[in-house]
């Protein structure tokens, strides 16, 4: 099989240090055979630059600070500005109220994962929906 591996950038926008979620999901995606680039703390410019340079299929944003609307909107705006928004799937995970999911999807996030997510669901979603 020469199928290209799905490439994922896992990033933590902002300065909040809750790191377990991002690591756990990264490990699960890697175990599922995806190419994982762990960006750690990155500001919006760094996220978008890394995503373009690394030619990723998916950007995973891990946000536990309550500031998910602000950071996500900034990432989406810059991806649009660079003309790559259509090529990259954005997934969001963290302590995010379910009430916020519809608005985040409207903004352009492909899916949102809150507390209690089973990592297999994320793997399945990426496999089914990533643009190849």
């Amino acid at each position: 099989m020469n199928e290209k591996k799905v490439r994922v950038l896992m990033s933590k926008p902002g300065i909040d240090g809750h790191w377990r979620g991002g690591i756990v999901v990264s490990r699960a995606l890697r175990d599922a055979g995806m190419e994982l680039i762990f960006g750690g703390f990155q500001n919006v410019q760094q996220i978008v630059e890394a995503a373009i340079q690394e030619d990723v299929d998916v950007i995973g944003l891990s946000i536990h600070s309550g500031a998910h609307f602000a950071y996500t909107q900034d990432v989406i705006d810059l991806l649009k500005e660079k003309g790559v928004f259509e090529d990259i799937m954005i997934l969001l995970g963290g302590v995010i109220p379910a009430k916020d999911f519809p608005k985040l999807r409207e903004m352009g996030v492909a899916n949102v994962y809150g507390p209690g997510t089973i990592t297999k669901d994320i793997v399945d979603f990426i496999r089914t929906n990533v643009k190849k």
Partner: protein
Amino acid sequence: MFDKNYLEKVRQEKEKWEKLYENLKERDVKFVTDSEIPIKNLYTPLDLKDKDYMNDINFPGMAPYTRGVYPSMYRGRLWTMRLFSGHGTPEETNKRWKFLYENGETGFSAAVDALTFNGIDPTNPDGAPEVGTSGVPLYCIDSLFALTEDIPIDKISVALVVEPFTSAPVCAMYFNMAKIRGYDISKLMGTTQNDILTMTVGYIPYKNCPPNHILRLACDFIEWTVPMKNVPRWHPINFTGYNYREGGIDAVQELGFVFASACSHIDNLIERGWKVDDFVGRLAFHLAAHKDFFEEIAKFRAARRIWYKLMKKYDAKDPKNFGFRFHVQTAGSSLTAQLPKVNIVRTAIQALEANLGGCQSLHTNSYDEAICLPSEEAALVALRTQQVISDESRIHNTIDPLAGSYFVEWLTDEIEEKVWKYMDKIQKVGSIDKALSTGFLYKEMRDAFHKRRMRIENNEEIMLGVNKYPVPYDDVTDVFRTNKEAIAIEVERINKLKARRDNAKLEKILDKLRNVCEKEENVMPIVMDATKEGATVGEICDIYREVWGIWEPPLAI
């Protein structure tokens, strides 16, 4: 504790009983503790055969303190009900604190935001959207005045939950505020978390300095407050196993991390020329009360005994210094966003562990914490949970009621033995800053994350609503939102301060701080001067960064 002949009789009778039991089927589950200690179906005097009451258990307030640090324990004084609390702005947090105080809270604890933790001012674009979203912003001395307005800080103790990178500036702001208000800081009571592991493996640090400098900053603060007697009644450090335990390590590892870290701090202060008895009596601890009821109780009991033995090793002389005093927080990671009201039950059980384990202070989580910062209603339920135990349950009629339980005493021994071994494993890597910089602790955390995930996803660890009787993640509780105006309010606060202060004078003080950092002298005296003159937390931390550099932690996936 038992006569040999009597034990022989018990052994014979037990054999008979086991024969009766032989063909009975047990449920198909692993009978192990959360830290994977295998548990027998029954404990008897045979499991305590080598124990000596006076040496191993003894009376409360007497070595080895297994039954509690004070002779009267809760018959003398109840634990402090201290809810970790902070959001939006210092004014809003002050309002919440007063609400909890009026409802019976007996200690305060400031939960700060990510900028305060990392020494970033709100004028820095890096973290601006996070002002006040995960705690109270405390960026300058004015914030401390607003936080404590109309609160009798000479009568009620305040815990400032900041870590070594920012503990000097934030606490200096607090002490300066208290002085200006007319309080004698040598009588102030309170705690600074000041825990090196919280902002390294508990959370990852954002633009903090290398661990050897962080360790020194923690020890600077301990040295200046206690042995130098500036704030001698303060608890200058609270070794916070809670935060890394929440990452997924087990009860044994939690104590291993905590004691290995405590030893490194003690060693540092001894190197500075202090005697153990000059400071250890004020070192405090903050542990988790997690899901495994008896294991957690045994952990608290074992911790007291280990600390006593460590103090003997360090040749501490004053018995007042042998007591392991600790705050407990119920386990946030045990809570679910699914069916959040079930969290009230989880928290109540965990609070009971803390009380049966003899804690000095307790935070109970709010039922909405898997989703948002606590709403006022949820925080009140959390406080009432402690009060149900204190005022309605009568569990405090006698001290350490579980002592003498064959099982609890046996498990206390097991935990103790395993903790010594695990501590040894960490200490073989070196002092706690080396255990960080070599990546050892990051690998331990990574393995714990992975193991915990596998356990939950394989249904070996049950989370109701998630992997058993699952329900969709849907908010069934109101979501508490922090103040969206917080950023504008805090930038305005800083701007006002900067307009008012004597910038030339401050520059000179900051130059001195640069010099002190280069020479690796104690930063506290100069940080006291700087914050009094209006230096912000970000300005102080920028000097640390400039002199010592920024550290990238060796994260492991």
